[in-house]
């Protein structure tokens, strides 16, 4: 296990470096003179020069890259053009809100997907199964930026059960955004649980258990379901990345004060240090989650050959 962890960490290093390099190059993809584009039309030459100096664009490319990596190693993500505050500080303030939203959505997805997926697998090819499969297709087709406003109309405007936007009302503020983001994930998980459990129910050990007198319910929940959950855990971890990007959209819909909303605001105001740093944090979070899920997979299933 230790060898596996070390090997995975070593594999992550070149990928992390690749991500850092790609994010570093973003500024240089700006058409024309990046400093002029960022300073905006009608900017004075001295303002353009200041922007160029602030971004380090007056240095040779290799030096810019080395400075960038060195600053990152010291936790320095740069300063916001808009507020002149440390970008890391702004991100640290917003990050927890995005994580709360992501976990809230996962909870919603699990609460929906588990019963639906299990019933669908047990009664496969019945009308319940067809309903669950239809729900799964609707779930992945329905855009969150449509579903969210529909929920707002139904439950925040017409009924006032939940707030329209913001995070001021505690858990109530979390409900509609979590359902919005959780829908697509619940559809994917429902499908996954259904397929995975159906496969396990076909296995000989389940037939043997029932033949030996174990009740069908016990055979399903005590034996088959445990094994069926192994691929589901992996999918859940992989889908966490989709939740992070889904949060960018959901936070816009509900004016949720998270990292996604900060990213879009930064793009609108051309605050490129903030843009770069926000993208970096989201990408690194995704890599870490994948890494943890790889480890979890090995722990949950002892049969997995980690070599």
């Amino acid at each position, binding site marked *: 296990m230790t060898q596996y962890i070390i090997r995975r960490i070593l594999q992550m290093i*070149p990928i992390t470096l690749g991500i850092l390099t790609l994010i570093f190059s973003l500024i240089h993809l700006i058409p024309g003179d990046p400093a002029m584009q960022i300073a905006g039309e009608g900017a004075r030459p001295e303002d353009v020069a200041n922007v160029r100096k602030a971004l380090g664009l007056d240095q040779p490319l290799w030096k810019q890259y080395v400075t960038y990596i060195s600053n990152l190693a010291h936790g320095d993500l740069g300063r916001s053009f808009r507020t002149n505050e440390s970008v890391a500080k702004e991100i640290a303030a917003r990050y927890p809100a995005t994580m709360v939203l992501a976990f809230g959505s996962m909870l919603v997805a699990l609460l929906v997907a588990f019963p639906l997926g299990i019933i669908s697998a047990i009664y496969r090819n019945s009308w319940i199964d067809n309903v669950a499969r239809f729900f799964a297709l609707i779930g992945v087709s329905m*855009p969150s*930026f449509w579903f969210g406003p529909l929920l707002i109309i139904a439950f925040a405007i017409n009924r006032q059960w939940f707030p329209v936007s913001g995070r001021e009302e505690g858990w109530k503020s979390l409900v509609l955004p979590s359902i919005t983001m959780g829908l697509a994930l619940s559809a994917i998980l429902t499908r996954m649980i259904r397929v995975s459990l159906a496969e396990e129910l076909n296995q000989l050990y389940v037939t043997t258990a029932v033949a030996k007198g174990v009740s069908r319910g016990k055979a399903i929940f005590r034996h088959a379901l445990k094994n069926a959950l192994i691929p589901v855990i992996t999918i859940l971890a992989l889908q966490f990345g989709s939740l992070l990007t889904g949060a960018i959209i959901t936070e816009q819909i509900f004016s949720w004060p998270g990292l996604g909303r900060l990213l*879009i605001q930064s*793009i609108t105001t051309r605050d490129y240090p903030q843009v770069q740093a926000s993208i970096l944090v989201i990408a690194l979070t995704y890599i870490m989650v994948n890494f943890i899920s790889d480890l979890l997979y090995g722990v949950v299933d002892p049969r997995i050959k980690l070599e």
Partner: protein
Amino acid sequence: MKTLKRLLKNFAFTAGLLLTLLLVLAALAAPLLAPHDPNHQDTGRRLEAPSQNHPLGLDDLGRDVLSRIVYGSRVSLRVGFSVVLLASLIGITLGAIAGYFGGWADVLVMRTCDILLSFPGILLAIALVAVLGPSLNNVILALVISAWVGYARLVRGQVLKVREMEYVTAARAMGAKSPRVIILHVLPNVINPVIVMATLGLAGAILSEAALSFLGLGVQPPTPSWGAMLTAGRRYLGLANHLAIFPGAAIMLAVMGLNFLGDGLIDALDPKYRKLMR
């Protein structure tokens, strides 16, 4: 023919095919189907609810919503087909090279894929559009850069299996050069899953374009785009709910149709999947 008959018996596939044909028809015949000019503004009647003259109402600038939805299908299809075509061409080429030749080509392509896949969802597309500037062509470019990776990995995996087959060995033994072997013998036998991925990729591209436009990073006004229409819809929730409902329904029907189509194709082309469902 047998496959087509089986496909048409599948309700989901048939429904998906009909929805997709409707989408294509709307895009091709937009000038004939749209009852009004999509950019004509009647500011005195802003946010008007659905009526006989304007079945889906008017938007925040007094433009006919139905006409803008019909014309918006052109943007969606243009982005969808462009992304799928370009991403699949790039992905198939690089995936075939990586899988067939292996070695450094494989390492380079796969490590690039790993790096690009480390950006979840449309994050990379958002990053690219943020620096390149919002426009239809930049959206297509950004989505192509994100999407080719899936095709490359799929084709590479398939090519690794197929290149050891006897007919490929025989072709090489008869003196056929590598490009000929890849194009004539290897690729035709890996194309089925690529077709399914392309169908689902079309749905994904339409959804991604709508998402980027919703965030203000996609198609710019006055070009009608379903995602941008939803941005306006969100601003007027409670005042003009029709602005939030109808463009979103159009996106969902289009994406659902393509997902049904893709699912139907999986059913037809993947025996393992079909076996599990019975």
